[in-house]
């Protein structure tokens, strides 16, 4: 009896110890679908759902994000642009009318409320030259973290200060076809991510770096582009020599401006970044005007 039990136990233990090696085919619950965001940061559609899939198929599932400008914020943007033009032209009556319409719809839309208050107080507000796509409460992102209550918009904490501010001219709030995200700044370096509205690419990154002198910037340009050996090309845009290349899905264009280097990098959704080179040049064209 004791011997039988011992042998049985030995067999069972052997089987049990083999469990970690054998494993098992399990089901995994994954979230899949698409979230549609407005450039103002609001979630327009949430088409995600939880599905149970075999473990081997998990990698195929995920949640994608699409950014569009919704009708409401599209109308507000054009009306706000008209109001800014009227302010610039000195037509405060038209500007007031436009701003009142905007405030009636969205009290926190950019600087509409404060500009309206200034006009009502008899003064002429400054023109808001920020991104036309930027949304509620003066923020430009899609994160929807703006404040409420019509307060004066506050600058985000990551707004660069000091000498690095001079580099911000290459990372504007507005680039046609892209939605700007926050700026990440260091002492002599800053970068800004943009979300493309077109489907051919899913990320745009602009990196501006301050070097010791122009020679160092030229050297950096040459070494940087070596990392993108495919489809190598160069082009002169607005007086800047842009060296470009591709590495996998990434297409990059880099130029220097005195001691600065500016790298424009696009991540294509297709299999190769070569098709995104023209879009890179278009961005360079936009930021070097």
């Amino acid at each position, binding site marked *: 009896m004791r011997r039988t*039990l011992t042998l049985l*136990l030995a067999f069972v*233990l052997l089987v049990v110890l083999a469990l970690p090696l054998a494993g098992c085919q399990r089901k*995994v619950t994954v*979230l899949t679908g698409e979230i549609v965001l407005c450039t103002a940061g609001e979630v327009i559609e949430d088409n995600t759902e939880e599905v149970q899939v075999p473990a081997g198929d998990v990698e195929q599932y995920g949640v994608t994000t699409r950014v569009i400008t919704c009708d409401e914020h599209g109308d507000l943007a054009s009306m706000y642009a008209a109001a800014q033009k009227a302010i610039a032209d000195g037509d405060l009556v038209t500007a007031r009318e436009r701003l009142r319409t905007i405030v009636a719809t969205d009290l926190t839309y950019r600087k509409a409320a404060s500009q309206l208050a200034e006009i009502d107080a008899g003064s002429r507000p400054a023109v808001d030259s920020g991104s036309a796509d930027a949304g509620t409460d003066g923020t430009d992102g899609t994160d929807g973290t703006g404040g409420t209550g019509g307060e004066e918009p506050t600058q985000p904490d990551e707004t660069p200060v000091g000498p690095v501010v001079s580099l911000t001219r290459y990372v504007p709030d507005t680039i046609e076809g892209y939605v700007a995200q926050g700026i990440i700044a260091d002492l002599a370096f800053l970068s800004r991510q943009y979300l493309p509205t077109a489907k051919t690419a899913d990320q745009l990154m602009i990196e501006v770096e301050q070097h010791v002198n122009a020679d160092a910037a030229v050297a950096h340009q040459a070494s940087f582009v070596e990392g993108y050996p495919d489809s190598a090309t160069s082009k002169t845009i607005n007086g800047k020599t842009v060296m470009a290349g591709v590495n996998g899905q990434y297409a990059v264009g880099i130029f220097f401006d005195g001691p600065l280097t500016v790298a424009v990098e696009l991540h294509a959704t297709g299999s190769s970044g070569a098709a995104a080179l023209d879009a890179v040049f278009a961005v360079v064209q936009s930021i070097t005007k």
Partner: protein
Amino acid sequence: MTSETDVTRDRKGRARPGPSSSPRVRSRLQRSGARSATPLGVALGMIVLLLGTAASSVLGTQAHQSVSAAAMAVVAAGGAFVGVLIVFGLPRARPEGLAAWLVPLFAGAGGFAFAPWLVMVNRYTDAPPGSEVLFLTTSSWGALLAIALAVMSCERVSRIGGALLALAGAAALVANWERPSSFSLFVRYVPEELQMLAAGAVWVVLVLVLLWAARRGSLGIASLSAALGGLAGAGVLAAVGLASGTLSRADFSGGGFWGYGIAVAFATAGLLMLLRSASAEAVAGTYLLVPASISLILIAEWVVGPLGPQPMILPAVLAAAASTIAGVVVLWRVSPERVSGTGAPRRVLGVGATVVAVLAVGSAIVALAVPTMTATVNGLRTDGSQFRAAFDLYGYEVAGPWLALGMAVIALGIALERTRLRGVFARAAAMVVAAGVWWIAADTPLRTLTTFIPSDVQVDYGSEFARIDFAGDPSVWAIAAIGGAILALGLTLAGRAGARAEQAETESVGHADEDTTGSRGDRS
């Protein structure tokens, strides 16, 4: 631990003619320097082996990144040779036959050269993770040795249970060094990890060969043969390395490299100090305790604070260490009961304890096979898309059910075996400690990484880009197993106590009868 006699299981309580019971063998042991272990001697040997093994593990991790596996094997074999010289010097006696030096020679080539080489050749710059390598090359080797020793004993069930408990405790310990942990056995580097276990089997053969030599009284000769075998094996590996261009003179440099060799020398010296007592349980126990000892170093580092906040989950680490120590206590050899009267519990309680213990083992096995905890993963993939998944961890991927299985097997062993009552109490106390701290370490996931979650998400665990969270507690099956084990233990102890009381009563009645008879005789 001791050189006490072993007995057969022929239900007669007859002593098996073994190494220490035979006067001829005992005298030979005494002549050759084999000695009964004193607690102090065992403790000293364990400390030397523990420090040497822990240091060789840490320094090996540092050195292997820039040194070839063949060079590591050479320095390991050299260190082992020095370790043998430290303990025995150059023996003057000659081997008594071909087998007396040839078998240790081959075992030494395997254990002192091939095993370190096999471990090092399967290590990459930062993979498999250090916690897995440590577990697979120390605790697992100790458990393999403990199981091999248990199988050859007549207390095999409880001692195997002890090995399981100690091994599960060691796994839970290293899995709590950080959270999320990179400790995920047999997920990403299965062939490499299996080869590390195979290296452990080779090392176990060496230890057993040396143990048998110690029991024959020829440990010194066998050790030297094994060390020479190690050097020869390392020479072969070095020759192959030189021929293939993987070994060069530049490999033989660096503080970590030479420190590894010195640590191996001390580890070998500690191993031989313990084997001189003709017992290897201390060796197995020490290897199982290496992760716990390295944890103590981390605690000291935390107190000093040179590397910032310590990442260990301290309560779980301490609980796991306590479980490991409890397992080591159980796997230690205890001389079985010689008198069948007090060895056997009352029949009803004995059968009851066995049945309950079998049910507890069954319950623990079910606990290993059913989903136990849930893992939720949130992350950002490199293409910018969000990833979110939830999946179950089965019982065999969590520490609790393994600890429960170890305790259930121990309870079954105690119920089945006729161990000396003192040993039963020691094992019962160890089991009660393990059961007491079980809940603290029970929900430790033994697998964080998987084959199915995208690797670009898993690599970011613990950063702002990805996280994994575990929820849930060990299943009721595991709790039932623990409860069953404790109940079985209680029944066994009650049965043994009852049998002891009955025997004492019988003996006192017998004495009274003798007295009465004697009086009558006197009167007559």
